[in-house]
């Protein structure tokens, strides 16, 4: 299969890659760009471990083709912290023990940020439904919800 050149922005930096027409954005990020923060838990859009944003919209990168990223701005977990400062969500996840194994954490952080960008004060129900596409098998979600709420509070008061 012939490969296709693609120009994008990833975490604010211009990025170019070539990929096969049937290659997923997740595979491109992980295998061609060395960005292994997004994880593949299912490859079928069911687990959210591969969550990234594409022009600000939350997507499962396992369901997006690399070629669809042409001209788009992609944000991944690797871009969440700035310099040596963690994003409030990242700090809250550590402070509230919102991860056990941590495999779901990159996807959940990206998804939570996408929610708080739109809705800085979600109710617990809104939060639980927003994160319903991100599976976590370790925590039972409780501490994840508390951590996102704490980060949201902090971001609102910042």
């Amino acid at each position, binding site marked *: 299969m012939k490969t296709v050149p693609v120009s994008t922005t990833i975490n604010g930096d211009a990025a170019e890659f070539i990929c*096969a027409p049937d290659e997923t954005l997740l595979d491109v990020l*992980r295998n061609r760009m060395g*960005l*292994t*923060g*997004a*994880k*593949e*838990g*299912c*490859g*079928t859009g*069911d*687990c959210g*471990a591969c969550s990234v944003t594409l022009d600000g919209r939350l997507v499962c990168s396992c369901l997006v083709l690399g070629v669809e990223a042409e001209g788009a701005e992609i944000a*991944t*977990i*690797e871009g*969440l*912290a700035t310099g040596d400062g*963690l994003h409030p969500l*990242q700090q809250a*996840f*550590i*402070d*509230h*023990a919102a*991860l*056990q*194994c*941590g*495999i*779901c*954490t*990159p996807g959940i*952080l990206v998804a939570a940020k996408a929610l708080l960008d739109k809705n800085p004060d979600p109710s617990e*129900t809104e*939060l*639980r*439904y927003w*994160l*319903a*596409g*991100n*599976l*976590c*098998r*370790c*925590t*039972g*979600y*409780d*501490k*994840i*919800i508390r951590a996102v709420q704490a980060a949201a509070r902090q971001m609102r008061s910042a």
Partner: protein
Amino acid sequence: MAFDTEPKRDFKVVGRRVARPDGIDKVTGRALYGADMSAPGMLMGAILRSPHAHAEIVSIDVTAAVALDGVKAVVTGADFADAMDAATADVRDNCLARGKVLYDGHAVAAVAAASGAIARAALDLIKVEYRVLPSVTDVDLAMRADAPVVQAGRAVEVVPVGLSENVTDHCEFGHGDPEAGFAAADLVIDRSFTTAATHQGYIEPHACLASMGPDGKADLWCTTQGQWAVRTACSAILGMRASQLRVTASEIGGGFGGKTTVFIEPVALALSRKAGRPVKIVMSRTEVFRATGPTVASSIDVKIGMTKEGRITAGTATLRYTGGAFPCGTVAMGAQAAFAAYDLAAVRTFGWNALTNRPKEAAYRAPGAPQAIYAVESVVDELCQKLALDPLEVRLLNAAREGTRSSYGPTFEAIGLEATLEAAKAHPHYAAPLAAGQGRGLSCGFWFNFGGNTSVSLTINTDGTVGITEGNPDIGGSRAAISQMAAEELGIPYEQVRTVIADTSSLGHNDVTDGSRVTFAVGLAVIKAARDAIAKMCARVARIWGIDPEAVEWVDGAARPTGPNAGTFPPMTLAEIAALSFKTGGPIAGHHESNADGAGVSFGVHLVDVEVDRETGATKVLRYTVFQDAGKAVQPDYVEGQMQGGAVQGIGWALNEEYIHDAEGHLLNPGFLDYRVPVASDLPPIEAVILEIPNPGHPYGVRGVGETPIVPPLAAIANAVSRAAGVRLTALPMSPPRVLKALTAQG
């Protein structure tokens, strides 16, 4: 091993909610999991799997696959070694079938190629001729004399003759005279239950990267609960010497027991050996469901007698478990755990394991216990309903306590069940009002907990910091807990300790992270290693001061003179001693190697409120509280996390999760869309209440906490559903269609 006579109860570091050392890596995407590693010249592996549940492999023709451009190696079961013990041979034959395929998805052959796409294309070119055989996936059918035989000649000597050849194991536990007990009861209830096989459901699929050189030395990177277990299995299966294989455990994206064995690792090694290049294999989610280990499926009869006052007079249970296509001993643990929460004069349990055409069972959190305790706790609850007794009072009245002869034989030491029940009774949840259509359920849970083989080393760095090397993959924050225990024992701040997890060439053997053993056994070992280092530091200081080593004691991170003739030297801190170490005899390190025992059993009680939608049959969990004895919670956040996470896995088991097979034994739901694990919007907050009844077998009183919490939810929810909807379901999961059917039957 000698136990400290009195567990320590006064702590500076232990019990604090410290930040975990791997936290930053895991929130920034830097942490490297199984699939995140690559190597120069790496090939991608892919595995061909059986489309049949049971078939003889007549022939495998790989010619066309080998000829495909980019294909570098093809292997089958014939590439593995022949001689090994029976248990390892089963693991081998599960990794690549020999002679017969035993379940839908059983691996048959594997390819390594320049890309994943080429490897998958090559799989289509492998021609396998099968002779399809009749199959069986239901445990009760598999035990019938006319059932298709999955494997012949696998029964152990305790199995009575004349049963189906699928029956591989039998066990019996208990004491007293149940018949006399039933005769003394005011009410006896006898019920049968079934539970579906469920999968551990870790979000990270199995993944590994193997590299073997022409000299036969190999490196293996993989996601596992135990790198030494991987080395032992892989070196036997490949016919290698253990010293030639170095296994490094990646960060692990969940295991829950499912990553205590090998599936793809020997295959990747065999491909690398053949191709002479590194080979990476990453399972798809479908492969994880089809070919890695779910828990057992079960069919259980329970009979319990009770007096009007609520005293249990006798209990019996017969458990029929299937651990899939290979012999499986899990039923013995279920049969021992079934009645563990009760102080009984007469109790008897019988266990049977039968082979079926299902994937080989792998351990899943408290293996065998949730099914058995679900059945027992359901019958206890029904007795309480029929006799109009408070289910919590009945548990308290019959609770096992210190001195109780347990249902599996030994007499209990100090245990926390009664305190846990009292905590549940005193909690506002137990008295909170319920609306119409809602119901409250409760259940006890139990797990044995293990210690096991452990080897750790602890180095005193010259700048006064401390490094710990241990060998158990960290699934839920154990590195933090281990650093805390070392800091506590040494009397230094937590921040000065760093714990890393070693590969198999850096330490002696460590058992897999299982049985809730790590905080207990590795913690115990690290405390002993710290004591070893302290003894060495005190000896150095004694020589500096020119006094007897016995005249030096260790207090708050420093050596001090003690006793009448020691003199009045100012204390020397760990950092001061460390800085002088090259002059006083060289580097200072502590070690501990042992097979730890005394883990101390664990009990929990769960309370749950549910509401059943009579239109759809859907059960909504409204409120959930977990009460559990942790002995001593080293890092309470992670203890709570274990309790919450285990509870939610149990909720999934109770309400939705199941392996569904068609009549030919094909797995119909190998994906998260149809195998539905709980999501955030399904759940209420999970409140976790930690009790601390010190374990006499640990210097700090620690008990394992990881497994018990998956046990109670099954019955707690069944009991709540029964009280909410007036129907008692005896089959798990209580999925909406099943509940609806029961409601319809009720009219």
